């Protein structure tokens, strides 16, 4: 029975090729636009590290002397002296302090490799375990190396390709500014989206090109103000780096992994306690107000998903509705033209349900074809988006399997929903009214 309706549907679509094409195109354009913008927005708001996002918290401390902002928010950075104190704790499973610098990187003796000024992530040894970075060669540095400010580095795959031709470079050395650093590990492709751990406005850019221990930055007095968000509300004692470190400048991003509620509460008590101790030393004069911000909350607070992308989705949905309304008009026209056929079928015994089934199948065909074509349009749209949003990570402009299936389903369902009325109307046709004229 259904295969018969399917045949009828194809026959009917072929009879009015222009109308059918128009309907399919309408659906496809609407679906294409919606899915293009939805993909970008969906990928933007995706959980970057689903298996542990509930256990990752950013530490925010109110070490200032007056209320910051509206009183509820805090800077997402903390001072170096607090960083030192927090790193002493053994409550978190992992804890990561991070900052960034820019350095001129070059090969030791191959003059053909032109030196580049690269972004360097400075961080503590837990970084690689906490954020589950995949390693191609070697590993991260040890806790001891981190403490000793060893001159070691983990390279991104791209940097390794550039500097060492993609070979296993563990143990090899390269020029880092004026010094020589040793490669200890090479990451495989690793592009968390959004790149939640760094500065919010960099969330859709690639991770930095290499990683060195946080203490190595401190020991060598490296600092690149442009790559750091720092809140300085009090002048440091003098111009030296040492007094910058002991100043009230907040510039270190600090993450902890707390596996359960107990660890969370324990750690909250620990940082509050730290604040109280500092208060007795004359710091934290404003109040005791320390926050452990869950990763997902942090992404919302810092507006990592841009309003523009949300707006684009809404516009595209309205666009789809216009396309579907248009399609609905076409369906009414189409079914109206088929009134004679319906009348005849009803007269020779087809029930209303039969008519509904027949037309629903015809519409499903239109919907699925529209969806598939829409998928193609969406891919073209994403290609265009890659050009337009060249400053965003290209990973945002890719559909995953759910989105691919979702696209076709959306086309099918929306065309059926909008086809419901025309179909029912057609099925209500009185056989007699059509038979009269025959």
């Amino acid at each position, binding site marked *: 029975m259904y295969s018969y309706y399917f045949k009828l549907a194809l026959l009917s679509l072929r009879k009015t090729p222009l109308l059918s094409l128009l309907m399919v195109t309408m659906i496809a354009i609407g679906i294409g636009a919606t899915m293009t913008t939805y993909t970008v927005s969906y990928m933007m708001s995706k959980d970057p590290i689903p298996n542990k996002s509930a256990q990752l918290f950013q530490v925010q401390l109110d070490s200032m002397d007056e209320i910051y902002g509206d009183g509820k928010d805090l800077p997402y950075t903390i001072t170096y002296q607090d960083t030192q104190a927090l790193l002493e704790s053994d409550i978190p499973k992992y804890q990561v302090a991070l900052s960034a610098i820019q350095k*001129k990187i070059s090969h030791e003796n191959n003059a053909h490799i032109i030196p580049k000024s690269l972004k360097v992530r400075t961080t503590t040894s837990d970084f690689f375990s906490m954020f589950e970075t995949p390693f191609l060669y070697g590993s991260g540095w040890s806790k001891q190396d981190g403490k000793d400010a060893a001159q070691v580095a983990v390279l991104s795959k791209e940097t390794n390709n550039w500097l060492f031709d993609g070979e296993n470079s563990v143990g090899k050395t390269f020029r880092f*500014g004026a010094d020589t650093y040793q490669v200890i590990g090479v990451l495989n492709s690793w592009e968390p989206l959004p790149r939640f751990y760094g500065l919010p406005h960099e969330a859709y850019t690639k991770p930095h090109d290499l990683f060195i221990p946080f203490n190595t930055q401190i020991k060598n007095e490296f600092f690149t103000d442009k790559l750091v968000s720092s809140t*300085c509300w009090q002048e440091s004692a003098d111009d030296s780096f040492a007094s910058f470190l002991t100043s009230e400048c907040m510039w270190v991003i600090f993450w902890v992994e707390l596996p359960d509620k107990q660890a969370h509460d324990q750690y909250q008590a620990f940082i509050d306690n730290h604040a109280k101790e500092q208060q007795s030393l004359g710091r934290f004069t404003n109040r005791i107000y320390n926050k452990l911000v869950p990763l997902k909350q942090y992404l919302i607070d810092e507006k990592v998903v841009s309003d523009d992308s949300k707006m684009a989705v*809404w516009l595209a949905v309205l*666009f789809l509705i216009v396309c579907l309304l248009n399609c609905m008009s076409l369906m009414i026209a189409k079914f109206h033209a088929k009134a004679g056929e319906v009348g005849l079928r009803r007269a020779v015994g087809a029930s209303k349900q039969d008519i509904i089934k027949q037309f629903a199948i015809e519409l499903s065909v239109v919907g699925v074809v529209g969806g598939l074509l829409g998928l193609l349009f969406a891919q073209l749209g994403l290609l265009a988006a890659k050009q337009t949003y060249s400053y965003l990570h290209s990973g945002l402009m890719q559909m995953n399997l759910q989105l691919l299936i979702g696209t076709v389903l959306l086309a099918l369902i929306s065309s059926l929903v909008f086809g419901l009325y025309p179909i029912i109307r057609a099925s209500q046709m009185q056989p007699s009214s059509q038979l009269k004229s025959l």
Partner: protein
Amino acid sequence: MRDLIPILKTLKKQKVAPALLAFQIAVTFMVLVNAIYMISERSDLIARPVGANMENTLIVIANLPNEQGDLTIQLENDLTILKSIYGVVNAAPITGLPLEGWGLYMDFKLDPNEEDVAYGGYFGSNENLIDAFGLTLVAGENFLPSDIQTVENDGIFKSSKVIITKALAEKIFPDNWREMLGKSLYYHKEPHEVIGIVDKLQNAWNFWSAVEYTVISAVQEANDTQRYVVQVEPSQMASVIEAIPEKLLTHPYKQIDSIEALSEVKTRSYQEDLATNKLLTVVCIGLTIITIFGILGQAKFNISRRTKQIGTRRALGASKLQVIRYFMLENAIITTIGVFIGILAAIILNNQFVELLSLSPVPANFLFLGAIAIILLGQIAVAYPVSQAAKISPAITTRGA
């Protein structure tokens, strides 16, 4: 107008198809009006002048390596080199860049014991900055070389002379901005005498309400990431860009992070807005085309269904013009209903819309112009099928069913 009653009667009888079209027009109208308004708002934001000479200002970011000894001497060296390059008018160091997205900001007071009077962005530089940016001094005077202090960090905490933007002066003294001259502006508890006022200079964040409230202090900083502003003679841009690395890279530790025109910094700063404007434009064009299709299809369907009726009217003496008028009027009515629904929806949904999409409400004149544009669009779209309808021969009535 005699057609009005029969049209309304037909619409009443055949409600669904016209209702769909009206609804479609309502949605189109809402989206178009909002999108065009957003585009124009963004374009206005992007069009705001930075205050500097955009054609001939070059930004150089280089390092002052600790390995090379005293940073202040290195800074003076770099500036001497930059100024000596053929085609360079002037060069100055600066602590941040307009629209860079990174910068320093602070609260201002007129009296250290009273409330803040404003907040704004900060640049520390020297007496050459006005020339290096090509700024216009509208009151007071420039720094003297003797006013300039040099530090390695934290210039914001030093007491110094400052030049501010007119916008900031107007914010503090709305009635007479010249009053700001000679007064002290307090930030970070130190006084800063305002000796000059420049017409405009945007600070670091384009989205910030205080982007035009800028302070230039007479404190230049010499540090690891050193920014220079270079004013170049017209048409010498390319040769200066080429000459800078040759001249500035004097030793192995020296590195240049970037050399680019200030206009590039600005474009990068607005890249999101520019991209969104592109997207909105595509949506507008797409919607317009789809809606024209809708109107066309609807008209064709109507006419084909009423071929006989039209023929009868013609046979009974209606002129071609009357047939055309009938369908044009019908379309105008449906479109107007659609626009009306659109305006109503816009008013009712405005608050939710504004909140949900963080849009600003569309002003009334936009709604009005949008309404006229959509009605015209409908008339144009319907023109072709209607001209076909007028060609229907009266003889068609004589043919059998």
